[in-house]
């Protein structure tokens, strides 16, 4: 190989640049830091256990989306009870601004869901059609 040392050096520099995002944020974002600041939810239990919810709630919501819209499934049974398969269900126990949004802005996540789905942060009066 010609200019072996330059090629290898180049590859190493490239890899370092590629990995900078990891170096910069490594150790900065900690779930434990934000966990304490979140508003206390109502009720005793979440849909599944807390640790699972914290890391998998987006998967659960994606699953629900499929199940509700395509399959017409609107009830979900876990060992903690029966829940409505709906994004609105979360607001029964959670505060949007002080819970979901707080953690999301800390983690720099911006779900697009509230473009179309109601959340209590919208400040529009509500009517209810399901008795």
């Amino acid at each position, binding site marked *: 190989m010609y200019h072996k040392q330059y090629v290898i050096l180049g590859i190493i520099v490239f890899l370092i640049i590629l990995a900078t995002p990891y170096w910069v944020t490594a150790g900065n974002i900690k779930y434990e830091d934000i966990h304490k600041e979140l508003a206390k939810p109502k009720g005793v239990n979440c849909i599944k256990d807390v640790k699972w919810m914290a890391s998998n709630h987006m998967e659960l919501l994606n699953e629900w989306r499929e199940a509700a819209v395509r399959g017409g499934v609107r009830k979900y049974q876990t060992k903690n009870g029966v829940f409505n398969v709906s994004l*609105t269900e979360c607001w029964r126990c959670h505060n949007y601004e002080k819970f979901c949004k707080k953690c999301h802005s800390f983690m720099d996540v911006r779900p697009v869901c509230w473009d179309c789905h109601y959340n209590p942060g919208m400040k529009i009066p509500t009517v209810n*059609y399901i008795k």
Partner: protein
Amino acid sequence: MISRRKFLVLVTAGAATIATGKALSLGEEKEKYTSELSEYKWGMVIDVDKCTKCVTEIMKKEGIDDIEKVRPPCIVECDKANNVPQSDKYYYSLIRLYMVKETEDANPLVFPVMCQECEHPACVEVCLTQASYKREDGIIVIDLHRCIGCRYCMIACPYNARRFLWEDPKELLKVVNPEAPVRKHGVVMKCEFCLWKIDRERAENKEPKPVCVEACPYNALIFGNLKDPNSEISKILKTSKVLTLRAYLGTNPKVKYKLWGD
């Protein structure tokens, strides 16, 4: 040294083991959501005589000439429940009223036309992203998570049942129903028999009823399961003559219009 033949056999066997293992473990992880939709086929019968009476009365009482401006209870409640915005520029309501005369001097008839829930829907046929689809219970649904707002479906629909949101509903809505989607500008919406409501009521073993059916003071809209021979709608279809709109197109709608009294 290992022979080529042996090497290939080993590699294939290894790959097969990994693949089956993976398939099995994936099957275990995936949760089961059991859908009950195959037991249902939702349909509606609309009593045109009652609708005509209701709408002509409103027009006379409020002095309205333009049928598009008439807002009977079914449309008012439907708009509110489904987060349909009100705008001066566009007609967004999911139900549209049409006035029809059989002959030049006949009394006009009023047909409320919403999505006809076709058995062979043209809108689904043309949808690029498979956002529009026919659910197992026969309702044509737009999965807005996939809708890109191309409006092919609106061109395809022979009943003018779909609306494109030119404006952001959040800016026009004065109240919002949190259980129904609020939607955003740039997507298509339509009547889905109040999907969010009838699905929930079905899950809770109540009698499912779309909002317009509940709102009608004259009981002109009959909603029910066509697969159940004892439902009210099945009985009506057995004994009365009904009309389907644009039957020659072969779309075979599940919304029927009842004329000529009983």
